[in-house]
């Protein structure tokens, strides 16, 4: 596993734990189809939430949220529709969230969560 993939995996684990602690019920992790991957699918307050997790080891290349561009957001929307189609019916109105995990070596991870980003 490459360094970045390892970091991503670590970030997703941290994010999943953070989400569960905040009352999200995890439905699925790393759902893949040929168009891409959804990091986390969870249920929260009657919504089906599709969550993009971005992990960085520092802010030299900008804040993790800045890596979620308009094109990535559009792809996430398409993937969410595909997930709903594949799973039959969604359990509630869909929502897209983003979680940023900042893992600086030797420091506690900083997790930020934005709900309903578009």
């Amino acid at each position, binding site marked *: 596993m490459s360094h970045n993939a390892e970091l991503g995996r670590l970030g997703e684990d941290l994010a999943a734990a953070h989400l569960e602690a905040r009352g999200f019920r995890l439905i699925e992790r790393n759902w893949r189809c040929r168009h891409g991957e959804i990091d986390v699918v969870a249920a929260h307050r009657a919504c089906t939430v599709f969550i993009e997790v971005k992990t960085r080891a520092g802010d030299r290349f900008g804040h993790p*949220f800045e890596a979620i561009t308009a094109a990535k957001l559009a792809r996430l929307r398409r993937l969410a529709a595909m997930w709903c189609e594949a799973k039959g019916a969604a359990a509630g109105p869909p929502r897209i969230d983003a979680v940023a995990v900042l893992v600086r070596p030797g420091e506690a991870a900083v997790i930020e969560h934005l709900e309903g*980003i*578009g």
Partner: protein
Amino acid sequence: MPVARTRSVALLGLSGSIVEVEADLGSQLPAFLVIGLPDAAIGESRERVRAAAANSGCPLPARRLTVNLSPATLPKHGSGFDLAIAIACLAAAGRLDPGSAGALVHLGELGLDGRLRPTDGVLPAVLAARRAGVQRVMVPAANAAEASLVGGIEVVGVASLAEAVSWHGGDVEVVAVDPVLAAQPLEPPLVHSGDLADVVGNPEAVAALIAAAAGGHHLGLYGPPGAGKTMLASRLPGILPDLGLDQSLEVASLRSLSGLGVGGLSTRPPFEAPHHTASAASIIGGGGRLIRPGAAARASHGVLFLDEAPEFPTSVLDVLRQPLESRSISIHRASAIASFPASFQLVLAANPCPCGQWSPKGEACTCAPSVKRRYLSRISGPLRDRLDLELWVPRLTTTATSEGAAGRVSSAEARRRVELARAVAAERYRQTPWRTNAEVPRPWLRGAGGMHPGSRATVAIDRALERGGLTMRGYDKVLRLAWTLADLDGAGVPDGEHVGQANVLRRAPLWAA
């Protein structure tokens, strides 16, 4: 606090309006939007604010920031909103005290390193803030001296964004920076040095110049090259009285708006002498979006000198007609109307013909009569009509140049006489909005003002009016000038001699020939 606000000033001409700068921090993906009719320079402030905040140790949050400049319909220009936008955003992000930020008006442009750069128009903006009842204003350190010229408002000068954030109670390390200095104030092109006593052997011209200064009359100077027309005109500001506080603030504001820099308040009247290649927009002011004052506005409360007037394009000369009448300049653009003051005293200088050798005595002029006529007709009749005084400045003879300094009037002496005459006039117009004889409108002059000096004094011009040698407008001009001459003499009312002298000064002899 997700929403915070502060204030800044949008300038339109000399008048400023308070603009509320609101910042909203949304829980969305990072974005930075500026709305509320910003121009391109304000749009670019997003990049300056983001970089300046990051380099000052208080980066903007990675969220969606929406900045609204309100009232949203008022067009806003320039980079002077940077500081207000940065402060509003940081207040919304909770990096400083929002109450403190909201109480101040912020002006200034940010550099990427977080230092504050001086901007144009700080003086009129601070004046506008004071009029709106603002108690404190924060400006770049380089503009602090200029802003402090406005009394009755506290000026906070800061060198960097970090210093501003810390002033508002933000927790940020303030590193001492070299403040960006203001550009050296440029001097007006023609410094009115030189004393009236330098003018040799032309006592009539000196007396007429003093009369023009005393009454605020527009003046035309005609004569052959080298006769001293430019020399006379450049001595006019030196014999005008000192400006009042409001007037000198207005003069400094116009310089500030023109980007010329304000070194301090000068009580001396301004002197503007644009070259004859000047465009109409450079004289009257203009610009597509950001409307800037021209030479005529900068000459307000002073002298606008047009040397070699027939060389100016007729269209440029004629844009001055309306400001001469209304004493203000309105510039109409699709987006807005800006107005500037234009209470300048106009001085035109011209050669009598292209070869310059014509004189009333009939010297060796080589120009064909039609050429001479065409040359002078470039100064249009309506413009010439607004000159109360026209003067023929002859070339000096040897006897005149060999005269000693005795009898010459110094600028200080002339100014004293001008001040006395103006005081008499101001006393006469106490109940009216006018201060000088040149300002008095014609209906008031003959009607409510009761300024007709009696038919014994005006018998000569009454006859000329009857015969058609003098128009009604010309008659009124003679009366105005006669009052000025009487004020200078300390006579209560003009007598026949004042009226006669005024009638001679009214028109130079060169058009008749």
